């Protein structure tokens, strides 16, 4: 486990860099990084459920959609100020996730994956069906919020900073949660639910709550994405979205908070690189990247970082240890 000081140091450095960017990058690049932050929040949500708690979800795109549409509908139909929509989306998804988590208690591994997969597939259909609320296939158009309090920032810069702020808060909360007793209970349930139960952990409650929290995170990400893109439509929340999230957490690193950021960077930028490399078959290149990354880093980017760090630490601790061969 890397020391707290080390982690905080790296995080602070990253944050410093992130704060400088809005004043150096083009609006388009800023938008891309805003997307990275949004994905990172969504991926952290999924990782809490799948990486830390062992419940596989191929349907988190659904919660992303619920968050996005909550924001869009609140602004479009009821003219709610956008600031209020973000926590509302979170709460709505918290409840939705918790409710979904209850029947999901009966399902494990493959079967849970199938159920969430079916859910993900159904989302675009359901969204198109409830036309009156969702605007059907046309979707809902929003306008990008301007910076408040007369700050001298353009909308892209403002959204970037807003998203960054939400990310920092949510990541700090998650880090706190996962390092404490709750986190240990969550991981214990993943590793051996029966043992955890027999030690007094209320697995049913924890699993459902974890589902809820995970959905809430992804829902907040969805809300932010609705604001950033200023448009929601059913087809952007298809099953591919959910699969991309899964790709993100595995490539980034399961059960890792930093993994969410690595994963977000991957799913945002690698498709673009693939396009640059080959106009004719970009997804083939993307697929090659996927496979290549998994060969080189089977436990994700964060997993490889951890391994390298551990090896480095071991090598630098050697001199004091006794020669291997003695010992009882």
């Amino acid at each position: 486990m890397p020391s707290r000081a080390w982690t905080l140091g790296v995080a602070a450095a990253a944050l410093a860099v992130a704060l400088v960017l809005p004043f150096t990058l083009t609006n388009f690049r800023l938008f891309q990084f805003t997307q990275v932050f949004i994905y990172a929040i969504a991926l952290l949500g999924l990782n809490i459920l799948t990486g830390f708690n062992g419940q596989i979800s191929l349907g988190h795109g659904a919660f992303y959609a619920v968050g996005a549409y909550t924001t869009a509908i609140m602004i479009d139909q009821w003219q709610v100020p956008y600031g209020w929509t973000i926590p509302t989306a979170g709460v709505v998804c918290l409840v939705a996730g918790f409710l979904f988590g209850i029947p999901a208690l009966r399902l494990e591994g493959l079967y849970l994956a199938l159920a969430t997969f079916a859910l993900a597939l159904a989302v675009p259909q359901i969204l198109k069906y409830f036309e009156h609320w969702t605007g059907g296939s046309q979707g809902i158009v929003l306008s990008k919020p301007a910076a408040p309090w007369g700050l001298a920032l353009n909308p892209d810069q403002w959204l970037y900073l807003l998203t960054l702020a939400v990310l920092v808060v949510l990541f700090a909360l998650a880090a706190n949660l996962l390092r404490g007793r709750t986190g240990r209970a969550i991981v214990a349930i993943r590793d051996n639910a029966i043992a955890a139960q027999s030690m007094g952990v209320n697995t049913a409650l924890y699993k459902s709550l974890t589902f809820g929290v995970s959905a809430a995170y992804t829902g907040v990400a969805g809300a932010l994405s609705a604001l950033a893109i200023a448009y929601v439509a059913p087809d952007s929340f298809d099953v591919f979205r959910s699969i991309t999230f899964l790709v993100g957490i595995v490539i980034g690193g399961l059960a890792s908070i930093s993994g969410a950021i690595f994963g977000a960077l991957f799913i945002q930028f690698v498709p673009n690189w693939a396009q640059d490399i080959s106009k004719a078959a970009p997804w083939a290149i993307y697929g090659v990247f996927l496979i290549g990354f998994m060969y080189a880093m089977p436990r994700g980017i964060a997993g490889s970082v951890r391994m390298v760090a551990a090896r480095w630490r071991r090598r630098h601790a050697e001199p004091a240890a006794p020669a291997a061969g003695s010992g009882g």
Partner: protein
Amino acid sequence: MDTLIQQIVSGLATGGIYGSLALALVMIYQATDVVNYAQGEMAMFSTYLAWTLLNAGLPYWVAFVATLAIAFVGGLLLERILIRPVESAPVLTIVIVCIGLLVILNSVAGWIYSYIQKPFPSPFPSTPIRVGNIYFGAHNIGALAVTLLVLLGLYVFFRFTTLGLAMRAAAQNPVSSRLCGIRVGWMLAIGWGLAALVGAVAGMMVAPIVFLDPNMMAGILIYAFASATLGGFTSPGGAVVGGLIVGVIENLVGTYVSFIGTELKLTVALALILIVLVVRPSGLFGRPAVHRV
């Protein structure tokens, strides 16, 4: 009544196709605990290869058998080259590799053959077969027959040959299999080869109906999931039966329930998956998972 029988038979035909793909999924899942999401794309790609052979002038059944052989070797090589390096990695890692394969196959097929739909010939006559007062599409009957024949062949292979026995053993208990001298890695590879072969049959039987295009197997893969879920992911026979049932239900619902158009047909499959998972996750014929403490 006549329409009902027609629809049932036509449902069985498509159901046989779903069941074949479902069988391929279950075969690999049983041996490796991994669902090969690329199964549909592998079938699609095999069908395109068949199309190429047919275009080169080969007679249908020659191209058919040649495609089966190529698919078998292709599946085997894919397992040895692509999956073997991550064999002992966490399950989700292997899943991502399968997704990578899916994306590559789809993209390459689109690149080589374009996304324009192409017609694919059926080896069966276009005149309907008449039984009493009812007319059955010859392709439907033919596809059903071919699918069942291939599945029968597989059954005989697994049940009565030594290699088939060794493969079953390797899937159930790799450690003990090694202690019997079985090369478990190669058993897996052959399993992938057979799954690819079965998928190729499914692809070639369905292409005349839905037309050949790189995305043709996506919907069918979902029906295959529904079939395997219904039949039970731990039961190869169940997957086939599940496929037949799903095919029939899909057809009957499409015919008799008026508001279900093509859009919502997929939702029927999804609803089926969810209902089965809620009521009996292990499916009709599957074994419920036992948790060893």
